[in-house]
């Protein structure tokens, strides 16, 4: 009977420890795989930068042609053009441009913004953000949504926040 015991008590527990460490490592590995799995390598969302045509193709005022595809309003004033984010600074809905009232109005909670993006009514705490806008050497507008300019930080006068026309 005694010769069948090939493992003494101490060895048994060290095997047990190795087993549990291996199991914990495998479980942690599986969990981290599941975590990484939830971030796809490819998504089918719009690019963060895009060519927006020539300045001459825009009339003065708010242009909505890129609203649905890229989430950007191009606004042209007398001497400047800038790219406004369509994301409301209150809770992230998308306001509508009401041409007759000359304001952006958010349908979710009623925030209102001038065509400059500055908030003037409703719960929005700060103006709409502007994206980087530049002219390429060929004379086309390039909007880069990875760079953001915020009025309350005094960034709307920075180079890249607008183009002169």
């Amino acid at each position, binding site marked *: 009977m005694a010769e069948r015991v090939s493992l003494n008590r101490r060895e048994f527990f060290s095997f047990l420890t190795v087993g549990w460490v291996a199991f914990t490592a495998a479980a942690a590995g599986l969990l981290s795989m599941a975590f990484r799995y*939830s971030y*796809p390598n490819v*998504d089918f*969302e719009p690019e963060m930068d895009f060519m927006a045509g020539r300045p001459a193709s825009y009339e003065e005022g708010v242009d909505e042609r890129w609203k649905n595809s890229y989430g950007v309003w191009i606004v042209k004033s007398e001497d400047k053009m800038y790219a406004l984010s369509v994301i409301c600074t209150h*809770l*992230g809905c998308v306001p509508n441009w009401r041409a007759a009232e000359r304001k952006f109005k958010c*349908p*979710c909670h009623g925030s209102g913004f001038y065509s400059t993006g500055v908030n003037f009514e409703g719960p929005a705490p700060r103006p709409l953000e502007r994206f980087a806008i530049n002219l390429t050497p060929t004379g086309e507008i390039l909007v880069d949504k990875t760079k953001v300019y915020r009025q309350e930080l005094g960034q709307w006068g920075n180079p890249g926040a607008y183009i002169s026309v």
Partner: protein
Amino acid sequence: MADKGLAQKVRDTQIWKSIFRHGPPDNARNRAAVVAGNVFLHLHPIKLKKSGVQLGYTWCMGGLTFFVFLALTVTGVLLMFYYRPTAEYAFNDIVALREHVPLGIMREIHRWGAHAMVITVWLHMFRVFMTGSYKPPREFNWGVGVVLLVLTMLLSFTGYLLPWDQLAIWAIAVGANMAKATPFLGHGGPGAALAQLGDFVMVSDKNDVRYQLLGGRFVGEPALLRFYILHCVFIPLVVGTLIAVHFWRVRKDGGISAPL
């Protein structure tokens, strides 16, 4: 030998005896066997105090919550036969559930039930709090209950998107922005700006918790699918498991609380 009644003849058949493994519950031993020998009842104590079923004390709110949960499971499974979680079909299938399907009220039962479950969960917690039933030895089960409360609200939140109408999309857009404001894990939250190495942004809208929740930077088709899976499979599985733990701990922690 006296002629046996019909009821006794039925009880003597092999079919009856193979289903019910005990005699009629007319004595203490058999009544205990009824509970202990049944997979659905065996989570419960074999005996309980008369005061444990006092409606004025317990309101039966935990029981009502479980009942509503079962009703939501049944109606939810029925809804799944007609609902396709894609941007093309989701809204039309919701309309079809009302217009093209007999008993078009099924979706309304599911929706009202969802509201009712949130209410009964809160009332159950209120009762447990006011009667001091969260105190030792029941403090662990209070913790399980708090997790179940959060999961109940997550079920409501994920189900909110599935009708895929304007209300649903913008409500989830607003709700998902709470994930964006998570400290360190959301790109709009406190601490996210600290996690920046020169020009390299470590927490961006492409890799924060909101992206994980929505499967994208905004509420689109991947978000609909994720919420559908969470709502119909993932959260119900977790909730079902925790409900079993919750009931079992009620019994093991001294039974349902009663007036002292």
